[in-house]
């Protein structure tokens, strides 16, 4: 049986709800988690911003509670280390379901599908010298053994510069 979990619109304590808003870099958040704000990406000359996108909200089936706890622990330690090393600038999980807005008619549809290999479950914004270094960090992701894949993307800064030069 597959479960489809949707959103719950209200909770009465501070625990997470299966819903509510999530904003990715659209809204600045006050959070002690982040040592740097995203704007810092541009500030270091030899470092680039890389986005690690974690895909796969559909973890390998039949993972035991012990295994899940181990991945949680490992992932926590990994993110903590990256943050302390100044490599991770930000990182957040994304709620399963949201809306997809598309087309000139601004059609709003449900999605992505709750559980899929493609759906993005979270991200980490890295500061790294090269793509190789970012990939090396991505390879350390504790979720890789359990059905998660990591997409590594350079945060493009060239367009802005290129434009500036041509002017």
């Amino acid at each position, binding site marked *: *049986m597959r*479960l*489809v*979990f*949707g*959103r*719950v619109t209200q*909770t*009465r*304590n*501070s*625990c*997470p*709800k*299966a819903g*509510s*808003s*999530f904003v990715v870099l659209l809204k600045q*958040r*006050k*959070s*002690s*988690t982040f040592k740097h704000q995203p704007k810092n990406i541009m500030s270091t000359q030899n470092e680039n911003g890389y986005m690690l996108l974690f895909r796969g*909200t559909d*973890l390998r089936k*039949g*993972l*035991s*509670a*012990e*295994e*899940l*706890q181990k*991945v*949680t*622990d490992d*992932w*926590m*330690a*990994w*993110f*903590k280390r990256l*943050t*302390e090393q100044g490599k991770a600038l930000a*990182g*957040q*999980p*994304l*709620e399963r379901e949201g809306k997809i807005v598309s087309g000139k008619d601004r059609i709003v549809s449900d999605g992505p599908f709750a559980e899929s290999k493609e759906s993005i*479950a*979270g991200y980490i914004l890295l500061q790294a010298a090269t793509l190789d270094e970012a990939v090396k960090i991505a390879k350390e992701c504790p979720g890789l053994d359990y059905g998660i894949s990591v997409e590594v993307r350079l945060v493009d800064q060239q367009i802005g510069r290129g434009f500036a030069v041509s002017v």
Partner: protein
Amino acid sequence: MKKPQDTGHSPPSGEISQLTEHLFRQEAGKLVSVLTGIFGIDRLQLAEDVVQEALIRALQTWPYYGIPNNPAAWLTQTAKNLALDLIRREKLFRDKQPEIVATTEQWSVDSSPDDSPLFDTEIKDGHLRLMFACCHPLMVEEEQTVLALKTLCGFSAAEIAKAFLATEAAIAKRLTRARQKIRELRIPFEIPSGEELAIRLDGVLQTLYLLFNEGYKASSGASLVREELCHEAIRLALLLAEHPAGNRPRIHALIALMLLNTARFPTRTDTDGNILRLKEQDRSRWDRAMIARGMFHLLQSAEGDEVSDYHLQAGIAACHCAAKDYESTDWPQILSLYNRLVEFDDSPVVALNRAVAVANVDGPTAGIDAVKAIRNRAKLSSYYLLYAVLGELEAQLDHLQTAADHFRISLKLTEIKSEKMFLSKRLQACEERTAKGTLNSKPRIDANRRE
């Protein structure tokens, strides 16, 4: 997703960055019980799935925001939200919906669930109800233990398979059958009362005992998982004993027997995984605190005039734990307990253990006689320990050839590496002593010739 600033999470840079051992597994057991109370026991699988989902949510959130201040409450709340959401969506629950929602709302309102005595009772009751359902007499033994491990203890099919030396598919099948049986036979989700309680309680104790033995047996599965089974059996038994319905002398006896044996668990093998005999074990490494707890429950088990086989087994374990070294073991007391135990349990394995006690009291010859006198000894004919015991006793009598023969048979009857290694060593010792004996006797033969 909630906002990081109002989560009560400690940031990842805080000191606590490791979860309490087995937290997920144990919370899963509790939550499945509670959710089963809501969905109904015929939808056990659904409860298990919701709990799994709550754990996955934790995995996806905690790495970034850190461990919540009260992880158990977080998981409970998340499971609750998922359950409510599911109930609202699923047509199946439409009739029951208002009632279910009302119950769920009660779980935890303003305080965190851990502070709420109401919720605590709810969990304990749920746990016990599920325990009684898993151990229902209509379920066969193998279904009982497997289902208890899956639902009450939060083990996965793969982990159970490891402990039982079975394939994951076989365990999964067994689980499906067990859940199906619960539905079809309409096995109730309740704590029995009145006359039924005592009978049903015995069934639960039997399952916990089996669970414990499965873990304690040196012969099965990966050692870490096995030790976990022992701890789980103890945990469930303690839960049962805390409840008015379960607080009986015999359950304290069972707890005592489990604690007093588990206290010696780590010393049963050396660092290379070789089996160590009782006389070779480092008693300073026995878990004294656990022994003390065992003795405490043994005392509690003495209330009333009830004597169960658990009492006798706990008594035997207590004799071993109380002895400061092998030599000072009170074997006569152990033998008298075994003499009573064989009256309860005519298993030839118990009789074999008794024979070892006889040998320690009256010498190896008496021990061998006791083995020969085992009533249904034929059942042991392919049991490697029968020959291992005979080998030991014959070796003590310097019947080295006979002893070696027994060890050889024993070796053929077990596939477990650590046991094979142990038996090989015993066999080798016999052979060396035989060779040495021949060597020593040579001059004598020569001398005889000279005469």
